[in-house]
């Protein structure tokens, strides 16, 4: 995707520059299949590690914020202000016994956490961190971002089914019913953005916003739909019915323990991160911004959105299952269809 970037966005020295070390022939990586495979592997490791680290940070921030909202202190014992708490938790989870119920289906039980976490991490490939910089700018990047995480629905369903447990089964059914229901309005909201950007690549998306303005100003309704449905997709409050502790114990991952359980946890936070990062790319111009380099802008914007999601968790009550489904099909789907029409008109007005 060729984009003509405005001059003031010229931050070439920052984007990918650090990768082109003088003693490394970067072309080699792009010319050979094994080079490409290695490059992909390298980025996979980087992204996965980053996601893991980010999750640890999130958990800490979430605990502290919730403590602040509820007038508590939160973790204080391990490290200064409890900074090492998550690290200790990770060690505990890693060395905990891995219990698989005797009646569980071994194949599905093992496969399910992987199906939840791997797609969530793979979606990172197309997130535009800097202005021209994407880990890999696919021609169909935006579709990739929606298609790959949709596999998670299978993982949720399998996890609940494999456990041989009434509560997990119900939790899995509810989780994937919710997942598929909110996928439609969310996708339709993204379609409106694609209409305006005129391309499916994520670099093209940022380029179109550099040409006009942030799409949130042109399509406010799309952003509202995307934000709310994304909360539902990643099972955040007020849409955390699948894991409603007071009703379903812990939902589809009741029977999971130790490292396997932490994979579900990681997947959930990873998809929250990707979804927030992509919300920035879709509606807030990605890394576009004055003075500071794009990467900094991007991280700042994403952090604001994630923080908003964290605060939301401790301020809203939970929906009931029937309300949840009615909200998806009777409010958001018609709304997003109307929004599609509106976006067509906006598009004709702007371009």
């Amino acid at each position, binding site marked *: 995707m060729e984009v003509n970037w405005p001059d003031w966005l010229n931050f070439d020295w920052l984007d990918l520059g650090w990768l082109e070390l003088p003693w490394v022939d970067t072309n080699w990586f792009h*010319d*050979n*299949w094994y080079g*490409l495979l290695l490059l992909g592997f390298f980025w996979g490791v980087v992204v996965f590690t980053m996601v893991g680290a980010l999750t640890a940070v999130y958990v800490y921030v979430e605990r502290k914020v919730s403590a602040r909202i509820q007038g508590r202190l939160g973790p204080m014992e391990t490290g200064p202000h409890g900074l090492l708490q998550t690290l200790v938790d990770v060690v505990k989870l890693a060395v905990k016994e891995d219990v698989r119920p005797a009646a569980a*289906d071994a*194949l*599905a039980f093992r*496969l399910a956490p992987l199906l939840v976490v791997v797609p969530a991490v793979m979606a990172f490939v197309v997130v535009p961190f800097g202005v021209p910089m994407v880990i890999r700018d*696919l*021609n*169909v990047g935006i*579709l*990739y971002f*929606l*298609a*790959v995480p*949709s*596999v998670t*629905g*299978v993982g949720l*369903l*399998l996890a609940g*089914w494999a456990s041989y447990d009434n509560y997990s*089964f119900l939790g899995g*059914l509810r989780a*994937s019913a919710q997942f*598929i229901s909110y*996928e439609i309005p969310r996708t339709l909201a993204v379609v409106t953005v694609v209409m305006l950007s005129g*391309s*499916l690549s994520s670099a093209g998306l940022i380029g179109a916003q550099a040409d006009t303005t942030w799409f949130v100003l042109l399509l406010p309704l799309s952003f509202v739909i995307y934000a709310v449905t994304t909360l539902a997709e990643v099972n955040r409050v007020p849409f955390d019915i699948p894991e409603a502790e007071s009703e379903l114990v812990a939902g589809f991952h009741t029977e999971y323990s130790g490292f396997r359980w932490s994979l579900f946890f990681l997947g959930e936070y990873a998809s929250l991160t990707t979804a927030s990062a992509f919300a920035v790319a879709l509606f807030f111009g990605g890394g576009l911004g004055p003075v500071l380099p794009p990467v900094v802008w991007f991280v700042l914007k994403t952090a604001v959105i994630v923080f908003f999601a964290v605060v939301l968790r401790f301020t809203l009550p939970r929906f009931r299952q029937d309300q949840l489904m009615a909200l998806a099909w009777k409010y958001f789907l018609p709304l997003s269809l109307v929004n599609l029409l509106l976006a067509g008109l906006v598009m004709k007005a702007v371009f």
Partner: protein
Amino acid sequence: MLDSDVQIALFAAFGGIAVIAALAAVLTRYLLRSIVAFGAFLTAIAGQFYILAADFVALIQIFVYVGGVVVLILFALMLSAVGQKHPLAVSEHRGLGAVVAYAVGGWLVWAAFGQDLPKAGQVPGETVAFLGRAFLDQQLVAFEVIGIILLAAVVAALVIVRGERL
């Protein structure tokens, strides 16, 4: 370099995965394994689409099949609660089935080698833009007909599953 040999090798690798997964899906007697193998098969086919310069179709394959049809099949499996611990029955026509399958497969493979096909043309880079134009111009009928089929499908399926009259 990424020449056609590499392309063919990768295509064959995906093809091998697809064939093995399809065999597993058809031959296993446990329904859940069959569905999991089916998912692997679909992903391998998506890889083949991507290599054949149909990146859009490949992702649609993942989106609709793996994220949609497989979920639907799993729902049906759970709602009908069949074949869950005990293996499924296999019909008595296995010999006949094998003969027919060998015949069909042999004929198709023979036909594949018998053809003198032209070299592949130059593929446009931005497949999506061309696809969109195709849907709005030459293939408009297909586009709208899919709409009608979808409408018919949802009405029919709801009528069947709810067991009531139109």
